[in-house]
């Protein structure tokens, strides 16, 4: 049995003004048990809508979603008891309760009682490194501590499937690293994880497979290595004060995808192979253009380019 089975999933938001918004346009995805699946995409791609539907917070417009065999529409109770969710950000805890009280509350909401609950809460506090601060009111916690508490809360029912929606958003690098280490441990424990992120490095570090989602569609599902190769192939060169003649020369070099002016006298050249980048740099040096910088496009830009045939300089 698959941990997560999504077939033909569509979600349309009716808006008061304007046309209905189609957030998900037919998603098909199967996540086997024990897999850590990264869901990558820019803001507004439909990642959060997908998470909400899987976690029974939102109904699908059409299509089916099964979590460990339970349908999110017809067997909501079954889904709820086999699913843990962690939303990013530092909201979502009762600030006036202690860490232990928060976890105890959620444990009892999930029907865990008595000594089992006490033990479970204690274990989780230990595991996320909050045992020493367990009796402190959450309102005084740092962002990183709150997010660790959220992870503990998501795990309180010992769920078979864990949804992490942008779990490291706003975390400082150290906290994010610790958080990833925790997720790595879970992965070893056999928990199926669906994690959304717009951070390529994060997805690559943690996921068994990565899906790219854009404008409500699943663009591709690959291993992180494959996606990583795609990203590293693309580069861009920004230069200032490039004469029009040189720009024309650059545009016809092999491997150059586009040459655009981004305002302020800045010229951006996008390439799809390292050799092309070298050629561009050489041409610029020959033309005595001094102000040159090299950068790598974000994953978002790369796959927007890949799937849409849109230039990387174009704002999505």
């Amino acid at each position, binding site marked *: 049995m698959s941990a997560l089975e999504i077939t033909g999933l569509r*979600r349309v*938001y*009716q808006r008061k003004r304007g046309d209905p918004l189609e957030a998900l346009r037919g998603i098909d995805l199967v996540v086997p048990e024990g897999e850590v699946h990264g869901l990558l995409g820019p803001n507004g791609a439909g990642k959060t809508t997908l998470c*909400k539907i899987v*976690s*029974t*917070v*939102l*109904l699908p417009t059409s299509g089916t979603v099964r979590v460990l065999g339970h349908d999110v529409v017809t067997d909501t*109770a079954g889904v*709820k*008891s086999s*699913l843990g*969710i962690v*939303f990013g*950000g530092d*909201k*979502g*805890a*009762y*600030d*006036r*309760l202690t860490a232990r*009280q928060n976890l*105890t*509350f*959620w444990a*009892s*909401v*999930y*029907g865990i*009682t008595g000594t089992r609950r006490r033990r479970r809460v204690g274990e989780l506090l230990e595991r996320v490194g909050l045992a020493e601060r367990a009796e402190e009111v959450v309102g005084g916690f740092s962002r990183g501590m709150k997010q660790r508490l959220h992870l503990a*809360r998501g795990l309180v029912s010992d769920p078979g499937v864990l949804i992490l929606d942008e779990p490291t958003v706003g975390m400082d690098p150290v906290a994010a690293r610790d958080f990833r280490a925790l997720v790595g441990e879970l992965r070893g424990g056999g928990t199926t994880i669906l994690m959304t992120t717009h951070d390529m490095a994060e997805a690559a570090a943690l996921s068994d497979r990565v899906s790219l989602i854009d404008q409500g569609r699943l663009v591709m599902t690959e291993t992180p290595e494959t996606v990583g190769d795609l990203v590293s192939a693309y580069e861009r060169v920004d230069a200032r004060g490039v004469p029009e003649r040189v720009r024309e020369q650059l545009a016809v070099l092999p491997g150059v995808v586009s040459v655009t002016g981004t305002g302020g006298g800045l010229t951006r050249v996008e390439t799809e192979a390292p050799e092309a980048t070298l050629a561009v740099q050489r041409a610029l040096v020959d033309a005595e253009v001094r102000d040159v910088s090299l950068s790598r496009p974000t994953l978002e830009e790369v796959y927007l380019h890949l799937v849409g045939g849109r230039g990387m300089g174009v704002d999505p």
Partner: protein
Amino acid sequence: MITPVQAARTVRHAAVIARADLGVVYSWRTWLFGWLIRLLCQMVFYSLVGVLVGDPEYTVHIVLGAAVMTCVAETMLATASTCWDRHQGTMGLLTASPVEPGVFYFGRSLQWPASATATTSIALLAVPPFFGIAWEWHQVPVLVGIVVLTCLSTYCMTMLVASFALVLSEARNIISAISTTCVIAISGAMVPVEFWPVPVQWIAQALPVTHGLAAVRAVEAGAPASAVLASVGLMLLAAACWLSLALVSFRQVFARARTGNGALD
């Protein structure tokens, strides 16, 4: 379907949040010198109207009514605390959890009926003697008992109001203000229920506090225990109906949120 044991557990744990909230909203000092004084002033404010119109018998009527209304003003605060989850960011987690929403909210604002039991008891026992009502010692436990049940029953009514406020959370204060004043107007606190047109009287009969107040008046008048018990029985019946409606309403609110209309987070 949720079992009574599960329900009790949910209420108990939600009440932990209620207690923590109360501790933040009030210290014992601000409770005593701020909140209690405010409620007692409100009671005296209405009671003095009896003095103004110059009718001692009517003054007694108002004093008792105003004392019992203390519990309405306070339990109605549950409309606000019901909406607090929306600011805490816990709403999405609650909707995704298997919790029975109405039961959770019943526990989540229990601080108000608890506090209301104290304030209303003080209002009912301490102020009337200044307006010529002398309680006898054996009446005190009876009155406190009625107050406890009236606070809880009124709280059941408040739960339905709170379920509406959860959807219209911007207007939660207006909703609770309108509800409180309407109850004060028609429940027989300031003027007898019979003063109002018949349809309004029917609505008044559906309010738990109308019967709780009737029970208090029966105690004051030295009516037989059966009369007091009858009023209390009617009150509990009304409370059960309100609570049932509230449970259904909270479920509807959560179900509606799932369709994407009326999102709660």
